[in-house]
């Protein structure tokens, strides 16, 4: 490198560092208070809230799903045992005895509550010999992807053909397709890439005749790896479209 270019770079660096360290921020920064977000008008609406349990009757050891919805609430809490929750959502509960759950919604306009009861039956008698059921987790096959790619590879086509055959034979089964990635990309990029992978899997299954309304896609990016080592064998296992039974 010539002396001339060296001094050119040095000048460039000094300029940039000057910008980074000395130029800006000096002198009082004019701070204009941003407009406050428009809040509810003078008389805030009273919160409303609903709570459902499904099923309302379970056997000991089984779970029921609580689902709720609210409007105009800033704080929601379900008792007993659940605690603070978001404005709408659902969660599984496994009460050991019959329980009435109460959701309390609090907002600027006051409070509202709703309840849902889950009754717990005594342990069921031993079931008679069950009809042979094909195991979901053994019949569906995950689809694996190349690095940075959401294209369906030949091996994934084969796996998804088997998955499609099973899903067509079990028309009442609904699935969630989860897009996953390896650890090398950023959290944010991987959430986007995982979404593209899940969508690619769904589109491929649709092309094989599986109805789109039976499949929901989600992306977990690199948040839920199946393999935790830092090597390509592991990364390949994590770059996948995974099926979870949704009903």
């Amino acid at each position, binding site marked *: 490198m010539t002396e001339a270019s060296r001094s050119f770079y040095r000048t460039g660096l000094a300029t*940039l560092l000057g910008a980074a360290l000395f130029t800006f921020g000096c002198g009082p920064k004019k701070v204009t208070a941003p407009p406050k*977000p428009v809040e509810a008008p003078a008389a805030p609406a009273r919160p409303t809230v609903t709570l459902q349990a499904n099923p309302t009757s379970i056997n000991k050891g089984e779970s029921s799903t609580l689902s709720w919805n609210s409007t105009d609430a800033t704080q929601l809490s379900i008792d007993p045992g659940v605690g603070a929750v978001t404005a709408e959502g659902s969660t599984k509960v496994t009460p050991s005895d019959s329980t009435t759950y109460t959701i309390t919604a609090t907002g600027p306009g006051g409070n509202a509550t709703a309840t849902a009861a889950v009754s717990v039956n005594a342990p069921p008698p031993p079931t008679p010999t069950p009809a042979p059921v094909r195991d979901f987790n053994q019949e569906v096959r995950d689809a694996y992807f190349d690095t940075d790619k959401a294209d369906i590879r030949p091996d994934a086509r084969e796996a998804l053909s088997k998955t499609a055959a099973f899903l067509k034979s079990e028309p009442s089964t609904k699935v969630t397709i989860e897009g996953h990635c390896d650890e090398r990309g950023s959290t944010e990029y991987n959430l986007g890439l995982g979404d593209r992978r899940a969508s690619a899997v769904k589109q491929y299954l649709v092309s094989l005749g599986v109805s789109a309304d039976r499949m929901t896609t989600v992306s977990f990016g690199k948040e839920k790896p199946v393999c935790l080592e830092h090597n390509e064998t592991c990364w390949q296992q994590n770059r996948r479209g995974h099926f979870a039974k949704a009903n």
Partner: protein
Amino acid sequence: MLKSVRCLGQLFFVVVILFCGRPASAQDWFRTGTGLGEAKPRVAIADFAPRSDTAKSHASLFTQVVRDDLQFSGILELASPSFYPPQVPTAPSELKAPAWMEAPTNANYLGFGNLTESTSEVTIQAWLFDVRNPSSQPVVGKVYRGGPTDLQVRKFAHQFADEIISKLSGGLPSVASTQIAFVRSSGAGVKEIWVMDYDGANQHQVTNLHSIALTPRWSPEGSRIAFTCFAPYKGVNSAQICMYSMDTGKLVAFPRFAGTNITPAWSPDGTQIVFSSSMQGTPELYVSDINGSRPQRLSHSNGASMSPAWNPKTGQSIAFVSDRGGTPQLYLMNADGTSPAKLDLPEKGYVIDPAWSPNGQLLAFSWRRPNDDYDIYVMDASSRQIVELTRDQGRNERPSWAPDGRHVVFESTRTGVGTRQIWTMLADGSQPHQLTTSGHNESPNWSTH
């Protein structure tokens, strides 16, 4: 030669890469100090005097926090306490200025004061004098009163440091009272939003969703944090935008959208949110009101776009990440979505995590160059010059600027593969400082004031 230079590089070396047709292999390392060409005022902070035994621990806490804040600011030189004269003033009448002016203290300014403490209240008198003009008015003279807790004493120390930094820098925004939001893993598959003081003190959990919370972003006025959350609804656990109010300590309602919804960021005026959503197919950028209403699509591509950063000064430009070209790269577009253009870098690799400096002129980002790990870089948006701030120290990602425009907070694996911790540094890469030590901490975001 290069190897030994790299070892020293932790503190004083940065690399500059220019675009002018220069081959990437011809990088050069330049020596530079953080105070290049500037004479910094030299400040001594005497031990604050406890007026009673009960005030002893808070007196030393106050003194230490003020010294740390001043040291961190980078705009002044803190005289080492081991050089101080034995006689320490506790009030202006006791000030013997010459002893502080002379060697070895050589101070331009002296901070001192005292603490009185009862079971219900601590009172702190604090002054800063120009020791070369000791007869003039104090540069800073303050009385702080509040509850006698460590937290409150820290707050007062930060406020006193803010005053000193503001006075001695001619109005540079001080960061001593700022906070950093971040993500902490609390058990398998659980990540919550936490907040800490800028110096790592006062780490406390903010969300309690028992789920995965990611990418916190402070609103410009500091009253809310928008973030990415996983909240199960009707059996579907998809990524959604969540909003937390620091004023009420509760979540604020934000609508659920179809698909994957991630990486919210604020408009400079705090009235809009820009985020990534696959509600209409591939993950694209949308802008909505802060209550989620009227989402408008901004980007149109065949890939995934995410991690928007809205220029906080001009409000006219949004930097973001897109893999439309095959790998994640930085793009710039106008705030209305027009004129998207890739930010070309001299080498390939992954380019992620754009973060604008408060003056809107510099863009910090993470770049994983070929055969290398992620490092933090800063680009001058107009000249496109690049400075590398970290090197050969694990994986360094997700820079976020302090409001003084001089410091950057980021996450790093430098303390061990698989453990991420949060660090700050000056925006030239010097003075790295670790804020978190236990567990797994990531995605820091510095409050705007």
